[in-house]
């Protein structure tokens, strides 16, 4: 049996697609003919998407062209997969939700007001695919980690349901010994580089590690290879806010911070650090000016 797949991409970096085609398993399936890539502008010559069994959508929604792409593609697949963190949660491009689209354009075009039409207009803010269309599976990760893709391929081949892990990176992390009592005060990652031991739990050393608030599935790739987790797998299934979850953990662990300003020295960019990959998916997904309507009150009324 051959499964036909298509890969379409919105605002993306191609890393997810590359992660997929760099998989040994995927190449074996290709060679065996178990998978047939029907559409991918990266590796096939097809200019139009035809009907496929499985459609991988990578990247987040940033322009109206992206919206059109989804509209065209959505009905052509029997299974839709939001592939990669951008598609699932907005990803790093989602940090653009801190600025109004007008300001983004202005900053990039050096204050030259665009006069020529044809530019695909930006959406008001970055939208993760799975918040606006129903997807069958979402496979987060920046890029999706190999074990997770492996599971996805298994499920596609066998027809069994694909389920995401339920727990956090700490569960898979070899550095987690079930103890988060800090040995050092919370410091900025850069400063901590001066004395960090990359083979010990980063949280305990006073270094922000997003592991406790980040979905497992990567086998704790970064911490197990010496780097604190930056949260690319997005929140746990029970949550939309990695930031909320990690703030809670930090407060519990580093409650002795004195003076209090030190906490902001350690985390100088709360949104950028704590919602690096998931701002558009979180409960408050944008800067107030980007997506909040303000209604003036007449006073206090019933």
């Amino acid at each position, binding site marked *: 049996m051959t499964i036909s797949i298509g890969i379409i991409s919105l605002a993306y970096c191609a890393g997810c697609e590359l992660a997929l085609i760099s998989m040994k398993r995927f190449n074996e399936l290709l060679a065996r003919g178990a998978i047939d890539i029907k559409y991918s502008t990266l590796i096939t010559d097809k200019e139009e998407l035809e009907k496929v069994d499985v459609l991988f959508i990578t990247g987040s929604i940033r322009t109206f062209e992206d919206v059109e792409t989804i509209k065209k593609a959505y009905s052509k697949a029997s299974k839709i997969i939001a592939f990669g963190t951008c598609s699932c949660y907005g990803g790093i491009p989602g940090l653009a939700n801190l600025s109004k689209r007008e300001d983004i354009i202005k900053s990039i075009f050096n204050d030259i007001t665009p006069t020529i039409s044809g530019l695909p207009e930006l959406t008001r803010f970055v939208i993760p695919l799975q918040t606006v269309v129903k997807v069958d599976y979402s496979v987060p990760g920046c890029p999706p980690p190999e074990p997770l893709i492996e599971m996805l391929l298994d499920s596609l081949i066998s027809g069994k349901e694909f389920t995401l892990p339920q727990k956090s990176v700490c569960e898979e992390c070899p550095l987690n010994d079930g103890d988060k009592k800090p040995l050092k005060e919370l410091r900025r990652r850069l400063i901590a580089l001066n004395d960090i031991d990359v083979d010990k739990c980063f949280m305990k050393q006073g270094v922000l590690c997003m*592991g406790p608030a980040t979905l497992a599935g990567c086998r704790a790739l970064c911490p197990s290879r010496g780097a604190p987790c930056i949260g690319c797998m997005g929140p*746990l299934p029970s949550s939309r806010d990695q930031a909320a979850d990690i703030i809670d953990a930090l407060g519990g662990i580093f409650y002795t911070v004195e003076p209090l300003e030190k906490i902001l020295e350690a985390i100088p960019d709360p949104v950028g650090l704590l919602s690096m990959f998931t701002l558009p998916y979180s409960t408050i997904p944008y800067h107030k000016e980007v997506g909040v309507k303000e209604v003036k009150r007449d006073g206090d009324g019933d």
Partner: protein
Amino acid sequence: MNILDSSTKTAVFICHCGTNIGGVIDISKIIENIKNIPSIAVAQDHRFLCSTDGIETMINSIKTSNADRVVVAACSFRTHEPLFQEALHRAGLNPYLLELVNIRELCSWVHENERDRATEKALKMIRAAIMKIQDNQPLKRIRLPVTPAALVIGGGIAGIRAALDIAEAGFTVYLVEKEPSIGGNMAKLDKTFPTLDCSICILGPLMNIVAHHPNIKLYTYSEVISINGRVGDFSVKILKKPRYVREDLCRGCLICIAKCPSKTVDEFNMGLSHRKAIYVPFPQAVPRIPVIDTASCLYFQKGICRACEKLCPANAIDFNQKEEVVEIKVGAIVVATGFEEYNISQVYEYSYGRYPNIVTGLQLERLASSYGPTEGRLIAPGLNREPRRIAIINCVGSRDERHLPYCCRVGCMASLKHSWYIKHLMPEAEVFIFADEVRASGKGFEEFYRRVRLIPGVYIVKSKASEVRGNPDGTLTIKAFDPAISSEIAITVDLVVLEAGIVASRGTESIKNLLKLGALNSGGFLIELHPKLNPVETAVDGVYICGAVSGPKDIPDTVAQASAAASKVISLLSRGYIETQPYSAIVDESRCSGCGVCSSVCEYSAIKIVKKKERSVAVVDEALCKGCGACVGSCPSRAIEIANLKLNQIDAMVAEILR
């Protein structure tokens, strides 16, 4: 949970509380509204729900409507929750299926002039509670056995009193004292204010009873080094330091002391005299078994002498004794580690430590004591004669933002007592007390104050001394501003007594850390559970504090607290079991990642990360859990919740208020 298709049946009772609630809130309107909620089995109001009639009505309605959970909108849970819980129990429901909404203190009383809005708010509050209670679970208190024994840490008057009280009730008591003898600070006092009892005369008998009490196991010259477990079941490790004198053989003849050739500074006499390398701290010491101080013993330092060993008639000297660790199990712990004088050499302007004729209050006690360095004759240490003019300075280090912000509570009375000592021993002497005020608020204190004030030659300067300076002839000059004459005065004296501030004893901190107790920054005193209502309990169940370890106290207060702590211990031990409060944290193992944030956050060590089927998960010891929710607030996986205050219950309330 959607109450529209709920299978639960909720009974709602709203109390008018006379006109307290009913006078502001339109209760009938609320009843009309909530009756439309499908899950409501019955919605009733009552003029006084807490009356006998109200309770009976409630029980009947619950039974007849087959309701399986109850919302009561009335007053404070603090005063009325037990009453309504009991009503549920009598109606055959688990008492934790009750939600009490306070529409009195939080609504009708604070919005008296806005009836419509108050009614709307009350309605929302009640509806939110109805939503919340849908997810309430029946809870059960757990009973756990209690080891019928207690540990008392500290052998001063507080520890002695507490140990005796508990032992008298028939329970085993382990009394641990770090010094070679029990007795503590009280043993150093000559007399006690305001009655002027001889201190050792009233303490000595108690010490002896402790030593021979069948229920008391005494560990002197010992320290507590580890404490684990929870209320009812603590395991404690005690380190026994070697005395080099066998307790089982020594008969207390003290020949060894007489023959010992080596001398060193006497700590018990506050450095005012010398003792031998083998010693008992004071004549009335309990136990009356000497200790060899290895730092000054010739054998330990130079390998020679062994005079004591040769001369001991009981062959009790054993230079090979080693440290010993004893492990005991107890159900409750009393911490009575007491106080010590503040290090007043830091109060630089009073020159303590720079001139021999400046002593602290406790040093004066030793000088005045019949078993002190001068055998009761008041000799100024630097003069070798009796002083003629003496100054006493109060509040040294106390009530001073630079040192200790609080009042030592005993200095004023001690200064009066010390004046009395001086005048009693040397009727011709002149005494100047420098005190900006004299606080005499205890029983018999004011009377004592009057008595001392009437002694000729005792002068009270109502001012804080600003400086003490030494003169070449060995005398000392005190400067102060005298408000009576609006001028600076200078008085030259032979001896200065500094009434030093009081801090928790040096050993307190390690005990605090072992037990995870709270302590104040200044003074290091341990924090009680509630300053008014739970003065001898601590935040850790089964651990009690008494005496000066929780703050400066005089002897009567200390003894009263000791008995209070003992009675708490006795009621715990004699009941034989503990009941845990049921609002403990619950771990959802399907969500828990074993990251360990909760176990690190828990101040009560109630959470441990354990391996279950190859996966690490948090496990809560319900007996230790206080239900504070710190773990809930910190869990990044939202895997730990407090029973009947789950995240979705709070969500449901939030959503209902906004509806």
